[in-house]
C-alpha cells in the first residue's frame, strides 16, 4: 500500500470476507472511497451492509482480506480510529437512554476529550442546524424515532469526524424528518468536507446525498458507479404518478419520460423518468400544455430489491 493511496482514500477494502458459521455474509469485497467523497452503499436487507460497516469500524474482524479506514487497521487501532469517524446505526442507539439528549453530548464530548467550550459551541451548532432545541432536554427514551435519529447523527458528528458512516439512518422516518436530515447532511459535508459512507435501501437517500453507488448483493459487489450509470444499466427510474381531474388520453411522448401505464380510463397515469434527464417540474409543464388538469401526484423511488434483481437479470 503506497502512502499516496492511503492519503487519498478514506476507505480501502481489499478482498474483504466474513463468514458466520456456514453463511458467508461478505464475500470478497474490494472497493475504495476517496477522501471527501459521498458513497451510497446499497443492497437488500441481509446483503452484508452492516457486516461490512462493522469490519470497517473495528467491531468485527474480517475472516480474510483487509480493510483500512482513515489509513488505519480498524481492529488494531480501534480507539484511534474512533476519534476520527462517526457512526450511526439506525436501529441501535449510542445515546444515554435515561438521560436528557444534551447529557449524551456532554458525555461524548468528555469521551472525545473535547474542551468544555468546544462541546458547548458544537452542541449549540448541532442543536441549531438539526433543530433539536425542542427536545434536547428531554430524556432520550421519550423521543420519537425521528427525534432520536437526529440526536444520533448529532452525537456522531460532535467530535468533527473525517468520515461519517450511516447505517440505515432514515429507516422508519416520515418524509419530513427524512428531508430535514438530508438537508443537514448536505450542508455539513459542504461546510466540513466530511466523507460519507451511507448504507441504505432507500434510493431517495442515495440520490440526494451521494455521487457514487456501490450495490452489494449476497456479500458481493454487484455494481460500482454513478446513479446515472446504474439507471442506464438497469433502468432504475423514478415514477411520477399523476391523478387527473378528468380522464385523458395516454400521456405518451412527454420528453424524457416513458409512459408505464394508465388506469381508470386515463384518470391515473404513470410515467417513468431518469433523474438527470428531466425534472418533475418540466414533466408537469409538458402535461399542462396538453390541457390536462393534474389533481394530485406522487413520486415513487425505484425499489432497491428490483434494482438488484435487474442487475443480475441484465
Amino acid at each position: 500500500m503506497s502512502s499516496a493511496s492511503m492519503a487519498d482514500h478514506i476507505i480501502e477494502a481489499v478482498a474483504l470476507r466474513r463468514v458466520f458459521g456456514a453463511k458467508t455474509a461478505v464475500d470478497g469485497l474490494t472497493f475504495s472511497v476517496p477522501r471527501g467523497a459521498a458513497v451510497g452503499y446499497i443492497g437488500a436487507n441481509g446483503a452484508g451492509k452492516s457486516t461490512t460497516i462493522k469490519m470497517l469500524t473495528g467491531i468485527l474482524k474480517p475472516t480474510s482480506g483487509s480493510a483500512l479506514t482513515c489509513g488505519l487497521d480498524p481492529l488494531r487501532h480501534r480507539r484511534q480510529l474512533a476519534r476520527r469517524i462517526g457512526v450511526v446505526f439506525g436501529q441501535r442507539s449510542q445515546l444515554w437512554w435515561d438521560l436528557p439528549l444534551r447529557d449524551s453530548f456532554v458525555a461524548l464530548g468528555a469521551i472525545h476529550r473535547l474542551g468544555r467550550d468546544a462541546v458547548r459551541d458544537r452542541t449549540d451548532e448541532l442543536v441549531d442546524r438539526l433543530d433539536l432545541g425542542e427536545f434536547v432536554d428531554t430524556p432520550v427514551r421519550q423521543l420519537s424515532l425521528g427525534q432520536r435519529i437526529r440526536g444520533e447523527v448529532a452525537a456522531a458528528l460532535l467530535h468533527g469526524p473525517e468520515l461519517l458512516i450511516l447505517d440505515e439512518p432514515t429507516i422508519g422516518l416520515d418524509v419530513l424528518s427524512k428531508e430535514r436530515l438530508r438537508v443537514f447532511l448536505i450542508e455539513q459535508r459542504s461546510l466540513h468536507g466530511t466523507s460519507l459512507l451511507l448504507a441504505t435501501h432507500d434510493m431517495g437517500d442515495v440520490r440526494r446525498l451521494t455521487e457514487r453507488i456501490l450495490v452489494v448483493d449476497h456479500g458481493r459487489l454487484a455494481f460500482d458507479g454513478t446513479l446515472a450509470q446504474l439507471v442506464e444499466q438497469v433502468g432504475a427510474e423514478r415514477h411520477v404518478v399523476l391523478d387527473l381531474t378528468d380522464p385523458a388520453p395516454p400521456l405518451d411522448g412527454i420528453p424524457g419520460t416513458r409512459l408505464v401505464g394508465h388506469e381508470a380510463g386515463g384518470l391515473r397515469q404513470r410515467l417513468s423518468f431518469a433523474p438527470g434527464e428531466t425534472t418533475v417540474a418540466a414533466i408537469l409543464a409538458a402535461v399542462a400544455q396538453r390541457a390536462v388538469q393534474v389533481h394530485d401526484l406522487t413520486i415513487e423511488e425505484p425499489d432497491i430489491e428490483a434494482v438488484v434483481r435487474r442487475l443480475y437479470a441484465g
Partner: protein
Amino acid sequence: MADNPYVVLVRLRMRAQTVYRGSFAIELVASLGATISGFLEIYVIFANVPALGGLDFPAAVLVFAIGHVSFSLADLVVGHLDALPNYLRSGTLDAFLLRPLPVLAQLITAEISLRRFGRTVAGSALAVVALAHTEVAWSPAKAALLAVTVCAGAALFAALFVGAAAVQFWLVEGTEFTASFVYGGSYAAQFPTSVFGTPARVLFTFVVPAAFVAYLPVLALLDIPGAAPGGLPAGVLGWCSPIAAAAVWTVALLGWRAGLRHYTGAGS
C-alpha cells in the same frame, strides 16, 4: 479544558439514579434484606454450636460483616457486569467499541447502583458492633490491616465480576452462570473457610481466593493462630489479600481481553 471522561460518566450516572427518588428509597431498604438474612444464618448456627472454625460468635459475625462490606462495594461499582448479555443484545457494546475508551472502563462506568449502598452501611454497622465484642489488640498495623482487607476484598470481588462477565462472551445466555460463580464466592467469603471440607477450603483459598477477603485477615486481626490452610501462619496470610486481589485481577483481565476478542471475532 477537557474534563476527565470517567468523572463525567460517573457524574451523569449518579444524576440518573436520583431521578427516581421513590423507588430509590424502597430499593435501598430492600437491599438490606441480604444483610439481615446473612446475619440470621450465623445467629442460628451459633445458637447450636459455641464455636465455628476456631471462631466464636462475634468473630464469625466480623468475618461475615467484612466479607459483606467488601462484596457490597464491588457490587456497587461493577455489579451490573452480570448483565453483559443485555449489553450485547441491545448493541450497547458495539457503541462502546465505537468510542475511544477501553470497553471495560466504559462498561464499568455505564451504571452505578447507589441503592446497593444500603448493604455497605449495614455491613459496616455490623462490623463495628462485632469489633466491640471482640478483643482486638489495636495498633496502627491492625487498623491498616482492616482498611487493606476491605479494599482488597472489594477489588477481589470486582475482579470476580469481571472474570465472570468475560466468560459470558462465550455463553451469551450465561447470566445464571455468573450468578452462581460470583454469588457462590461471596457466600463462601462471608463464612469461616474452615467450615468447608478440605477440597472446598483449598478452592476458596487458592482458586477463588475468598478466604483472603475476610477469614484470614480476621484471624490475623484477632491474633488467632487458627486453622489457616496449608499450615501457613494466619498472621502472614491475613496480609496477603492485596496479592490475592492482584492475582484474580490478572486472570480476570486476561479473560476479559480474550472474551472481547472472541466477540469481535465471532460477531454479534
